């Protein structure tokens, strides 16, 4: 299509995140040494990336469609909590706990989606509401039912192998889930005809609806996907760590947004890619884990993340402008 394949890479939404990832890896190799790239280290930051990435992709898709989901912060706790309550405290089979956790994800996702679609209240506010409501509900229920804020869970071996186990040197099994889920989303968003709809909704909702796209159903589906993904990660964390605290993970909200924005998704919608979010997530994980391999105190990692976020946004803006002004050369 174009004469210069390199130039065409820079016009893609994930260009900025790839450059950012390479820069961050180079930074930690220089300051922390190659140990950072040893298999044992790779396991630690890939595991971190997997936990974040499974949630970041659907959150990113919501952002591409012009919405935001903050409720993932308490949905991840809900996933852990419900699994531990049902299968730990009440001792029901683990499959029931998993289904209950994911079912609750579907429920909250539909609630978020319906509220946003029906009331036209900005999703920022709606999901801020469900974030706190679900967090409060969990904590309250937990104390009423168990009398404590911590629940333990001993999952059977099969469930551990599937969702909560390390293999090799510190590789969580969740990494495989993350890669499979990413591949599925790449297909859904960039190859199936439905992906086009997400971009159209984020670009111009009224035109999208007039073109016959079921915009409301699509928005609700995306909210369900993000809530279920958060519940899924929470569920596997409960199985891995065997104990669950009933406190919401507020920093997860920011972390997903950072991963998504570093990954080249436009905050106002209409632009981005799944591969970009994938790279953005790895970048974020590398920064938070890479600091341990350097001589810096780990408290500096937030500074790096802040600078990274601003740098990534500026870089993504530049690349997007390149994509917009691009016209093939006259032959």
């Amino acid at each position: 299509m174009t004469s210069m394949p390199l130039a065409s890479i820079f016009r893609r939404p994930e260009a900025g995140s790839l450059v950012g990832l390479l820069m961050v890896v180079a930074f930690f190799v220089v300051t922390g040494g190659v140990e950072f790239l040893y298999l044992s280290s790779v396991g630690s930051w890939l595991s971190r990336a997997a936990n974040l990435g499974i949630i970041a992709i659907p959150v990113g898709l919501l952002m591409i469609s012009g919405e935001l989901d903050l409720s993932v912060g308490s949905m991840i706790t809900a996933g852990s909590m419900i699994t531990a309550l049902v299968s730990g405290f009440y001792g029901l089979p683990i499959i029931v706990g998993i289904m209950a956790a994911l079912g609750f994800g579907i429920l909250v996702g539909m609630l978020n989606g319906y509220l946003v679609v029906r009331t036209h209240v900005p999703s920022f506010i709606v999901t801020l509401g469900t974030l706190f409501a679900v967090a409060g509900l969990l904590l309250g229920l937990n104390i009423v039912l168990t009398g404590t804020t911590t629940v333990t869970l001993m999952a059977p071996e099969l469930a551990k192998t599937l969702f909560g186990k390390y293999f090799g040197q510190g590789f969580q099994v969740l990494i495989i889930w993350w890669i499979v889920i990413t591949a599925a989303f790449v297909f859904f968003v960039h190859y199936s005809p439905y992906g086009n709809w997400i971009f159209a909704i984020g670009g111009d909702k009224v035109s999208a609806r007039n073109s016959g796209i079921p915009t409301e159903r699509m928005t609700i589906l995306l909210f369900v996907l993000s809530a279920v993904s958060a519940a899924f990660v929470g569920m596997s964390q409960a199985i891995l760590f065997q104990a669950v605290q009933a406190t919401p993970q507020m920093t997860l909200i920011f972390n997903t947004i950072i991963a998504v924005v570093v990954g080249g998704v436009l905050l106002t919608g209409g632009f981005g890619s799944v591969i970009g979010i994938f790279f953005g997530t790895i970048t974020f994980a590398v920064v938070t884990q890479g600091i341990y391999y350097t001589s810096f105190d780990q408290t500096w990692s937030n500074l790096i993340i802040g600078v990274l976020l601003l740098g990534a946004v500026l870089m993504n803006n530049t690349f997007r402008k390149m994509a917009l002004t691009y016209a093939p050369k006259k032959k």
Partner: protein
Amino acid sequence: MTAPIIELRNINKSFGPIDVLHDINIKVHAGEVLCLLGDNGAGKSTLIKILSGVHKPSSGSILMDDAAVAFSTPREATDRGIATVHQFGGTFPLMSIGRSFFVGVEPTKGWGPFRIFDRKKANEIAVKAVRDFGITRIDDGDRLVGGLSGGERQSLAIARAVHFGARVLILDEPTAALGVKQATHVLRIVNEAKKRGLAVIFITHQVMHAMAVGDHFAVLIRGSVAADFRKGEKSREEITDLMAGGETIADLEKEIENYMASHDGHPPPVTPG
């Protein structure tokens, strides 16, 4: 003469106590351009919304090919072949030409759940459709719509409407935000659509642009059709005066001249407000 493709009969529209349109009667035949002229607030937008299914008229009827129709959603109007192109093209700036062309009707290849968006086919069809309208600068369907000029975006939107079988093309101020050269491009495309037998409703307040392509003109003042005439029946000045609602620009000129004659050649003082 054959039946008009679209006709409005005694259309009234009011929002609560406010009457926006009174007794609108217009008809457009195939291969004809109706220019709808009017100042801001004359009711042009409301009329477009009725035609494109966004609003329902309070009374009166819409006829297509002499049969009454009613649209409850914009989608129904689109299905009947009424396409509306808005001032900025109404397309998706950060999507590629090929993808935005086929939003909602994506071509696919493959089988079952593994059907994939056929990017090559989409790009080819989109580029060909635009080029058939004489916009030869577009030759790569992977380009983003936002990178096109205003005129090219309009052309893309019109080409898209025609490709998907529009019979009535409603153009809402397509030339308002464009430079002279770009506007000429769009006017040429309007002409092309007309040649292909579409009924075009061209909304504008630029009389020059209207006169370049129009066969039939309707001037809207405060929600009524104040004048309805065919090409060549009125001069540009007459139309401009009509749009201004009787307060003619010639009158204004005379008033200033009279003032200056009686005040030693000074223009009238400007009073704020």
